[in-house]
């Protein structure tokens, strides 16, 4: 692809993102590069990417691989004084150029092909999406049978297929069942929501998924969606609205908070010290900071401590759009944010690091193994902590 064609494609794609024109207001201050968890391993920090695009040498950015060393943590975008949409516009548009050239990292290509073919990135059968329901002791209602429910519970791909994340899904389903929520799942009709495909520049696939999912949603009657998948939540409230979707969506931290009075009646005391990790697409991207903290603090006897980097300054787990790029990033950057994060949680005296995004849990549990913290620190999703408090 010639440079002119690359630039034309890049700007055409960036123009679709709200506030795209702020790209031209970049003052080259470098706050983005200073905030990036991977800046030490990249030739082109976001500031330099903007400069290279302005200078018409976008091909050098693509060849440098720098655009793949981004976990879409949103820190640069939030801290940028000019509000340049780096995470939503610049990086995905650069990545799309690599996709159009046909040579994205292999691990990512395989995940994207699997999403297109099977509706999940794991190359798993769509017919097995609801297999987790066989592992709970009550019948999880299906939308196809029930037709109507107050809450449609979206599990997301990790929540449905990933062995560790399925435990989170089961915990949340169990809580809903215990507090009498009128809910149902899409089961095998659910497909990947697609936020990570979008952040990786696969816009065509994202559109296809959004259209398909919205068509499936429209078959049933429900008043809100609840999901523990932070990226699904983000896409549903920010991107699916562009395709005509308008229902209320709650992240599970918000759902638990809304039901806190009922939950408090069921809570037993827990003798733990816990800290809370603000997942990027719960906290920094979508401003949900206090609801999970209030839920945690309301558990009797539980001691809550903050890590130094909290709320909008929380360190990314490295998952985000990078979970499929993990091995690629590791080849280039020795530093892994998840390892730094579990050490930080341990240093404040926590027994448990509580999170609210399914990607965090496996990322942090892997980090425990290489930091010698296994057995000293436990990783839990907030729904698992809440279920622990209910079950005592």
């Amino acid at each position: 692809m010639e440079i002119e064609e690359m630039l034309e494609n890049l700007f055409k794609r960036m123009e679709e993102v709200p506030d795209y024109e702020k790209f031209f207001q970049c003052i080259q201050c470098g706050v983005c590069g200073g905030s990036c968890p991977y800046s030490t391993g990249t030739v082109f920090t976001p500031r330099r990417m903007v400069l290279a695009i302005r200078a018409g040498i976008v091909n050098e950015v693509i060849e440098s691989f720098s655009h793949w060393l981004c976990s879409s943590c949103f820190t640069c975008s939030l801290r940028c004084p000019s509000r340049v949409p780096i995470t939503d516009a610049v990086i995905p548009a650069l990545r799309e150029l690599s996709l159009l050239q046909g040579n994205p990292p292999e691990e990512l290509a395989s995940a994207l092909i699997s999403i297109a073919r099977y509706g999940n990135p794991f190359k798993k059968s769509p017919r097995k999406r609801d297999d987790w329901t066989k592992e709970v002791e009550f019948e999880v209602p299906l939308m196809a049978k029930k037709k109507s429910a107050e809450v449609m519970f979206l599990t997301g791909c990790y929540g449905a297929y990933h062995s560790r994340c399925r435990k989170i899904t089961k915990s949340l389903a169990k809580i809903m069942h215990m507090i009498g929520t009128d809910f149902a799942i899409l089961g095998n009709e659910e497909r990947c929501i697609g936020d990570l495909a979008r952040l990786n520049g696969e816009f065509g696939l994202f559109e296809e998924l959004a259209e398909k999912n919205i068509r499936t949603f429209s078959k049933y009657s429900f008043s809100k969606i609840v999901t523990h998948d932070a990226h699904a939540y983000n896409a549903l409230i920010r991107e699916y609205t562009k395709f005509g979707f308008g229902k209320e969506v709650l992240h599970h931290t918000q759902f638990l908070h809304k039901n806190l009075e009922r939950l408090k009646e069921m809570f037993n005391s827990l003798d733990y010290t816990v800290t809370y990790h603000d997942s990027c697409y719960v906290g920094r991207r979508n401003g949900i900071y206090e609801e999970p903290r209030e839920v945690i603090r309301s558990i009797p006897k539980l001691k809550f401590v903050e890590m130094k980097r909290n709320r909008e300054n929380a360190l990314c787990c490295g998952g985000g759009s990078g979970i499929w790029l993990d091995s690629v990033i590791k080849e280039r950057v020795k530093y892994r944010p998840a390892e730094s994060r579990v050490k930080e949680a341990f240093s404040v005296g926590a027994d448990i690091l509580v999170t609210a995004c399914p990607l965090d849990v496996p990322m942090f549990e892997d980090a425990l193994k290489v930091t010698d913290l296994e057995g000293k620190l436990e990783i839990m999703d907030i729904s698992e902590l809440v279920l622990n408090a209910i079950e005592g």
Partner: protein
Amino acid sequence: MKVCVLLRLVPDLVEELEISENEVVPFQYIPNERDEHAIEEAIVLKEKLKDVTLDVVGIADPDSADEIDEGLGFAAAKGADKLYKVILNRQTFSRVEIAKALADFLNDRGYSLILTGVQAIDSFAGSLGGALARFLNLPYIGGAVELNLNEKLYVKKELEGGISAEYRLPLPAVVGVLSAERPLSFVPFTKLRQAMKRAEIEEVELEVPKISGVELVRYETPPEPDVLMLEGDVEEVADRIVEVLRDISVI
């Protein structure tokens, strides 16, 4: 130079065949991975030589005729020039018979090189390429991992023990590709959709002839396993297990 690649469909092993009393949920078909590598290698050859025209022939049965379109769309998005959808009218699954039908179709179309995947998951014998070459009276080599052309065709193969070898053969020829010399290139969804909209697929129905020579004598089901079901309460079953183990001299 005209190059042709054959693209087959194979059952998708991600899906399991589900059989209940009321219905059989069919598995879906996906393009044969080795054939996708053959297409990729043809694209590499096209990039190297510039004057290559690439035809891709998708092979399907009437019940999978629509499913080949996506594979052909991918080929078009990567740079294939002409697409054919060949629908087989066949009585058996013999690769030799299919090779004969395809040979009749491909003959006299002026191809200098015909590529196929060396194998398919539903046909480990890898007989399609060789049989096709036999019917077309052309040389055949299988297991290619790189192709180059310099008056004659140079084919790189990986042999046992990490040894690789280069073979030379005259054109026209048939080659069975093991893998392309680079990973399969990625086709974004937008590009695929555009290619499928643009693509003109010529549909052809092929009668697959019966060929004598190799006859199927019989199908055999595996022998019934000697299974002994033990029933009763725990004590009874435990006693019976001890008895059985003694009988067969395990204890």
